């Protein structure tokens, strides 16, 4: 039984070490405030919303999927 524990331990020690290294690296990250991040996301939306065909629909003639075209196949 201890054998099983030993095998799991050797694997988990290297895993735990990797996790510690990874967390140390993530801790060094430069973060910005959520208010700034949210403002940037909103600004992006605002800048592009007029070009968004699903929010500001373009006339049906310009949207190839909305055009009324009839496709008939002769069987």
């Amino acid at each position, binding site marked *: *039984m*201890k*054998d099983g*524990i*030993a095998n799991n*331990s*050797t694997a*988990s*020690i*290297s895993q*735990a*070490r990797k*996790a*510690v290294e*990874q*967390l*140390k*690296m*993530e*801790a060094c*990250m430069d*973060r*910005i*405030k*959520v*208010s*700034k*991040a*949210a*403002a*940037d*996301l*909103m600004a*992006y*939306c*605002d*800048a*592009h*919303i007029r*070009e*968004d*065909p*699903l*929010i500001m*629909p*373009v006339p049906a003639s310009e*949207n*190839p*999927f*909305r055009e009324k*075209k009839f*496709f008939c196949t002769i069987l």
Partner: protein
Amino acid sequence: MCDQTFVAATFGPCDSCGTASPLMNIYIKNEPINYCSFCMEVMACQGLQKGETLATLKKECESLKKKLEEDRGKLNDVELHQVAEKVEVVGALSIKTRRVLKGHTNKVLCMDWCKDKRRLVSSSQDGKVIVWDGFTLNKEHGMSMPTTWVMACAYAPSGCAVACGGLDNKCSVIPLSLDSNENCAAKKKTVAMHTNYISGCTFTNSDMQLLSCSGDGTSALWDVESGQLLQSFHGHTSDILSLDLAPSETGNTFVTGGCDKKANVWDMRSGQNIQSFECHESDINCVKYYPSGDAFASASDDATCRFFDLRADREVAVFQKDSIVFGASTVDFSLSGRLLFAGYNDYTINVWDVLKGTRISMMFGHENRVSRVRLSPDGTALCSASWDNTLRIWA
């Protein structure tokens, strides 16, 4: 474990783990070390420093995680939906099914648009990969894979090839020929090889490189021409279910989400895991970058979709409702990033307002789970693939 292989001279608490057991007495650099046999084994394998054990590492891990949460929390001065209160509400959407693509004989698992905004490729459990013309519903190419459950497919940026993979553990690239008589499947070339199913694949900015993610917990970058592995990415502790490449202006990163409930952001050149987000309560089925590249959304079996900002390094929105109890399997943003389309296992697609966090509308039509939703490259249409064997184009 019964140690019969050495004579235990002493018995007592181990210097390393503290448990009382027969001790091996050895000398390292003239210092007596009294470890029990399993700690001795561990030390021999790992080159552990004196006094460092699994317990101390785990404790360090926990304290680092707590500190990370605190640091992230300090910057949470306001919620996204609060900032977005002054933004105009999105009007009613007039999105309807415009095309229904029938042809697959089993569940459609994945689809991708071509950059020409009209063609798309879809792959299915029936082992077939079909290239469609979205305008005319014409099937331009149909290829049979040697395996069922083709779970991933992608269109090359040039429009001249498609990549697909699934239970065969490989991702293959098939050049599409203009000659309709030619058998495309014969020219298939195996590029990626994993040790478990392929759950997602995408070309990078050119036809020359392919990114794949797999049920074996790794993702990898391959050179298409030679099939060589350029970089591999390790870090997930379970199957990876989805990946997405950052929009081209923002550089060489991609995000993956998997069954370990984590979404990880990777640097393609170094192979490093740059950021990790663990907020979901169940498997993450899909991840997708926000069009600006500064954020991404994820869909999960916990019936929520979440929105993470990369520069603030935290979750900034959760899209959920008490009435939604089925898992979300796929997400995509509209062109401006204001709308989030999420496909669920209750056969519907919910449209969320990304900034306000509210649901705008629901799209009904499919008769089984929605497995994938993708916006066309110019944002005019949305294509959804479903387990009801069809794809629908909405506009």
